[in-house]
């Protein structure tokens, strides 16, 4: 089942790139919210996560801060290789 995944990121942040690559490698479709250009999305991210660091993932309402591979896998139901 396709899950609703949103990534809040900034263009130059390495862990944002790594999160997005990880999702792509696992064939997970996601919405990419660039908080450096979209003030509204930035506020949304701060409100959801209670903090100002990127990346932030919203997986069906579950908020994950940073490139926390284990939590992302768990939220998406990806089994470890």
């Amino acid at each position: 089942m396709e899950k609703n995944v949103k990534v809040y990121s900034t263009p130059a942040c390495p862990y944002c790139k790594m999160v997005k690559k990880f999702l792509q490698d696992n064939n997970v479709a996601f919405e990419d919210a660039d908080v450096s250009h979209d003030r509204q999305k930035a506020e949304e991210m701060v409100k959801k996560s209670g903090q100002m660091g990127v990346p932030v993932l919203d997986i069906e309402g579950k908020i994950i801060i940073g490139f926390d591979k284990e939590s992302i896998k768990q939220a998406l139901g990806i089994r470890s290789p």
Partner: protein
Amino acid sequence: MRMYDLIIIGAGPAGITAGVYAARKRMSSLVITRDIGGQAVWSAEISNYPGYQLISGPDLVAKFEEHLRTYAVALKENERVVGLRKTGSTIIVKTEKGEYDSRTCVVASGKRSQALGVPGEREFKNRGVTYCATCDGPLFADKDAAVIGGGNSALDAALQLMKICRHTYIINTARTLTGDPVMREKVEHNPAVSVLNNTRVTAVLGDTMVNALQIEKDGKQERLSIQGVFVEIGLMPNSDFAPDLEKNALGEIRVNCRSETNIPGIFASGDVTDVPEKQIIVAAGEGAKASLGAFRYLAQNKF
């Protein structure tokens, strides 16, 4: 308990290279690390790694990881090492999750951003306090920010922030900025930047998010209203977990030209060591040396 031939601590350029060499020598090895790539992921552009005329840190690290994973190297990610000691001929690596035994070890745990160590810093981490201007800078658009430090990394952060923030303060403990003159001129001539020399941060203040810094200048305490704090005061080696290893004054592990530490069987490589040049290519080369050293040690000691 299982006895490994080699345990590698860290998976930056040094640790990953050590892992590749270990696999090719058919040593039974385990890599324990908090993350993949270490500081290399923070490089926006790398143009001094042969074979790649220009590659980003995350892309080079992805290549490294892919290379390591072509071998059957056991890899434990998201695991922090908290202790390293040798008892008899057994090296014991303790992590937050368990203990592992090995005949040899390569310490390649790298460096991390140095913290200010003032009240409020930890509490407000990611709530205004950040260690990556490139990543989190855009979130402080039209706000006031302070960069802590006076060297090149501080100036680099200030150069990015002065284009985004309303006003940027540079808070520097020394009498003058110490970074490259070209960068210094750029920040000193920008009306959106104020340089506060001879100034020390004594506390980070705020409610849910940061709203001010307490600073000390000429013995007087002042309050500086800001929303973002960018800490750029250098790097610290991740060597605290190994109290038995000899280190220099900076806490870097002392190694000889064979990557050996003062404890036989324990090798070290990359930025955590006192090898002077902190470069991806140097770290990778040192990782190879350490792994080959471990192989030779195993052969000589006939376990």
